[in-house]
């Protein structure tokens, strides 16, 4: 409580620092305040996670009754992630704010602070009112930051779309929350959760759908993510780490807090969440592959990752509804794990993309290339981030994707065929997503870091500021640690999951090999000992190093992995090879020119780029993407001198939802506009009619 209050005080200090006339002093003081706030909030979150701090705060203001806040381990977890993302990206944001005129730059930082301040507040909200109130602050701050560059009509347009979608979502969510509060007889979120098992199916359906899609605007689920592509692209590049790494998680938080208890009592709403999540994931990654700008690609990939998280949550809720607490716990742990991982590597990649954009003046991968040559450190960090998000071991993405898929496979414990079909299809979609994600991030790393620079500015990049590389280095370490020490992370997440499922899944997922008898059949435990499950016992303060789950006697399927041991094996093998090559072989390196297939003049535009790399994917999913192709041939007499070909891909949500909606609106607006014809008599008539209508209504109400 104290730490969090002091954290907010530090944020206030940071805001005050922006008033300071000296630009340098103001920036330094702002950073100091921001980092102090980060540290304090992290401490507060850590204490809450450890169960050492919790509070309930009810403010009774006359204009805002029942504004309640509370802190528990789960909320601490979300606050911690937000604070860490903010703390890591704020130095880069502050540096990039310099490109604006002084007043503007300070405005940007002020709005960033407001955006960040709203995040822990959302995670602390205990009542409908405080949740909506803080949520709206976040929405407005997002809108302000997206349309920050008001001279750019695209930003303004994207801002308006963002605001419209956010507000529609917030209204839907508010309606849903009010329905639920009415049914529960209390506006306290905990009371709503507790009343979930008495609610009628109609209320649950309405509540889940309205809040899921309403709050889902920020999580980026289909179809309400239609603002994100343009919105994220319009926002200053330095802010995208905060958008993607922190604000998206709060949608997961509301899903957990509001929809979790409801969907845990109703199977089909949970399955809807699962289906929507899986569809979001697969569409997100397909669209990511069609993009050739780093920012847009990473935005679509965020949608994909959050889709995976939402799908895992849906699976977990469904398992709870099916009365399978252990698989439910595993799915929910996978969801939280994936969300945590996404925050880590997406912050890393977005900071990297921002660094590239500010150094090369573009984030179009078809104009970049060859950055690894002059920026080996930055390039390595960016590459490792791409490996992490591509779900390659030993990094963190692998563990959570693997857990998600495995938890979906636990559906074999359920006999209902329709549920099994839904799970199987969702699992297939997520598996395909994982494969496409790897393709996507090979493309990302390959086309930015390798090959020839495809523009003059990209060829001149020699330096990426430390405010970008230092956080990236920290995040690479975090990604590696989250991947290798999975058995240290899972117990923490397991304890967060327990209140929802009723059982802590830790013992079913991380057998206590280091502490006496693991909760396994003795035969299995004994047969695993020779391959090293006991390695590290007594040295490491962990339950074990193996993530292992064995089904019951009816479904005795075991899946097991030890990220730490496999990492140790891989690392020592690599070390051995390196040593042997040092000791035995003479190193003979020949440096030559780039092999260009013997072309007399290799031009950068002739090399393989992201658009070319993703062409097979675009072809395979062509019927889904439906690009509009315009071709235009310039002729000189009988000869074609130039051939222009332009492909425009409109996102499927825009095509199927936004564009029809817009045309309906414009139609009705055109109809209404007929009332405005300039005849004063008719206007007086309208007034009269309105008056009569009001009088009739008032009379009717009186009787």
């Amino acid at each position, binding site marked *: 409580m104290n730490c969090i209050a002091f954290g907010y005080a530090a944020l206030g200090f940071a805001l005050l620092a922006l008033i300071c006339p000296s630009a340098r002093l103001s920036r330094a003081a702002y950073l100091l305040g921001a980092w102090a706030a980060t540290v304090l909030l992290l401490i507060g979150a850590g204490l809450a996670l450890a169960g050492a701090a919790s509070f309930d705060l009810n403010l009774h203001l006359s204009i805002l009754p029942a504004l309640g806040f509370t802190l528990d381990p789960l909320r601490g977890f979300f606050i911690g992630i937000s604070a860490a993302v903010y703390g890591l990206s704020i130095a880069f944001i502050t540096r990039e704010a310099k490109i604006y005129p002084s007043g503007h730059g300070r405005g940007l930082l002020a709005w960033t602070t407001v955006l960040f301040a709203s995040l822990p507040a959302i995670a602390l909200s205990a009542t409908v009112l405080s949740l909506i109130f803080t949520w709206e602050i976040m929405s407005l701050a997002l809108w302000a930051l997206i349309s920050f560059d008001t001279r750019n009509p695209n930003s303004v347009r994207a801002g308006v779309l963002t605001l419209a979608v956010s507000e529609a979502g917030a209204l839907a969510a508010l309606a849903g929350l009010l329905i639920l509060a009415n049914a529960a007889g209390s506006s306290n979120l905990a009371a709503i959760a507790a009343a979930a098992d008495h609610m009628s199916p109609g209320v649950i359906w309405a509540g889940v759908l309205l809040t899921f899609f309403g709050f889902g605007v920020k999580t980026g689920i289909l179809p309400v993510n239609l603002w994100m592509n343009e919105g994220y692209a319009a926002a200053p590049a330095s802010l995208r780490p905060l958008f993607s790494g922190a604000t998206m998680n709060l949608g997961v938080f509301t899903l957990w807090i509001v929809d979790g208890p409801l969907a845990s009592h109703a199977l089909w709403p949970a399955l809807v969440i699962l289906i929507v999540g899986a569809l979001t994931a697969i569409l997100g990654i397909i669209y990511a592959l069609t993009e050739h700008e780093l920012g847009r690609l990473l935005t679509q990939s965020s949608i994909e990752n959050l889709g995976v998280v939402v799908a895992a949550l849906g699976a977990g809720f469904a398992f709870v509804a099916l009365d399978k607490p252990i698989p439910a716990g595993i799915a929910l742990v996978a969801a939280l794990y994936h969300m945590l991982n996404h925050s880590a590597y997406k912050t890393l990649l977005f900071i990297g993309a921002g660094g590239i954009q500010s150094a090369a003046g573009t984030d179009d991968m078809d104009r970049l290339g060859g950055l690894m040559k002059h920026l080996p450190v930055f390039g390595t960090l960016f590459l490792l981030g791409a490996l992490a998000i591509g779900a390659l071991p030993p990094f963190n993405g692998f563990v959570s994707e693997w857990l998600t898929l495995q938890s979906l496979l636990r559906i074999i414990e359920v006999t209902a065929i329709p549920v099994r079909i839904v799970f199987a299809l969702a699992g297939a979609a997520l598996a395909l997503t994982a494969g496409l994600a790897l393709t996507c991030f090979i493309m990302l790393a390959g086309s930015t870091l390798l090959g020839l620079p495809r523009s003059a500015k990209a060829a001149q990049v020699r330096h990426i500021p430390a405010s970008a590389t230092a956080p990236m280095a920290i995040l690479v370490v975090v990604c590696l640690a989250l991947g290798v020490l999975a058995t240290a992370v899972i117990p923490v997440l397991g304890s967060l999951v327990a209140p929802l499922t009723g059982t802590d899944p830790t013992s079913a997922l991380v057998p206590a090999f280091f502490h006496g008898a693991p909760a396994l059949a003795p035969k299995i435990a004994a047969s695993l000992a020779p391959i090293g499950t006991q390695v590290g016992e007594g040295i490491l303060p962990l339950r074990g190093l193996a993530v292992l789950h064995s089904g019951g006697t009816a479904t005795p399927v075991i899946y097991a992995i030890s990220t730490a041991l496999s990492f140790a094996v891989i690392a020592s093998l690599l070390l051995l090879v390196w040593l042997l090559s040092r000791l035995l072989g003479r190193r003979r390196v*020949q440096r030559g*020119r780039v*092999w260009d*297939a013997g072309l007399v003049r290799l031009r950068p535009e002739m090399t393989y780029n992201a658009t070319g790399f993703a062409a097979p994917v675009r072809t395979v999913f062509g019927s889904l993407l439906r690009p509009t192709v315009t071709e235009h041939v310039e002729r000189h007499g009988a000869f074609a001198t130039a051939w222009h070909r332009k492909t425009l891909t409109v996102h499927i949500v825009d095509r199927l939802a936004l564009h029809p909606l817009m045309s309906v609106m414009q139609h009705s607006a055109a109809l209404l506009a007929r009332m405005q014809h300039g005849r004063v008599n008719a206007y007086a008539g309208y007034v009269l009619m309105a008056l009569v209508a009001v009088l009739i209504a008032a009379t009717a109400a009186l009787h």
Partner: protein
Amino acid sequence: MANWVFHSLSRGIRTTRWPTDPETAAGVTPGRPRAGVGSAELAARCPTEALFPHDNGVGVDFGHCVHCQRCRHGDEALAWEQDFTWTSKPEQGREALPARFSRSIHVRYIDAGACGGCMGEIRLIDAPAYNMHRVGIFITATPRDADVLLVGGPVTEAMREPLRKAYEAMPEPKRVVAMGVCAINGGVFGTSFASAGGVAAEIPVDLVIPGCPPPPLAIIHALLAVTGRTEPAELVENP
């Protein structure tokens, strides 16, 4: 449908066993003349000036012979030999690749303006009858992985630079085999504004394969000679 199984089994293995066993099947080589007794008229009969008068008869410079067989028939015919172990080593050619290459070498072929005849023979060394893999010869897609550069054609103007780049792109140790009379000295194309008149004008050549085109077994013989598994022959034969 399943006929092919029976068919193949009944035909047995047709792949050549050379170099373990001799290969004498008809048509594996066009053959070549051998130096012998003859007059200056015989030498003048050769359209490519491959024959030259010598004190004791007529000598043959295989670097020019295109197997036209004009010296094989008529009076004063030269002896004709159906062999194919023609590869020879020019003076400046480097020694064979070290022994560790003797089981497998990777070859990159470059068409530096060949007429298509040489290309056709190259394709045949991968055919079942010759099966280059049985003696550890592999074709790579890029000179970066290649140990041997096999070049056909007289090196046209447009291919000078690519040929040099490909040679530079190869890792040491590397060897170059010039294939066909064109690659040796320009052959029927000679030297002109459009033709360098042989591979040696652009990059160092370690072995040459006479013939226009050299038959598949001659190519295999050359690629074995690159690693010292066979001995090269002489390019010029005196009577």
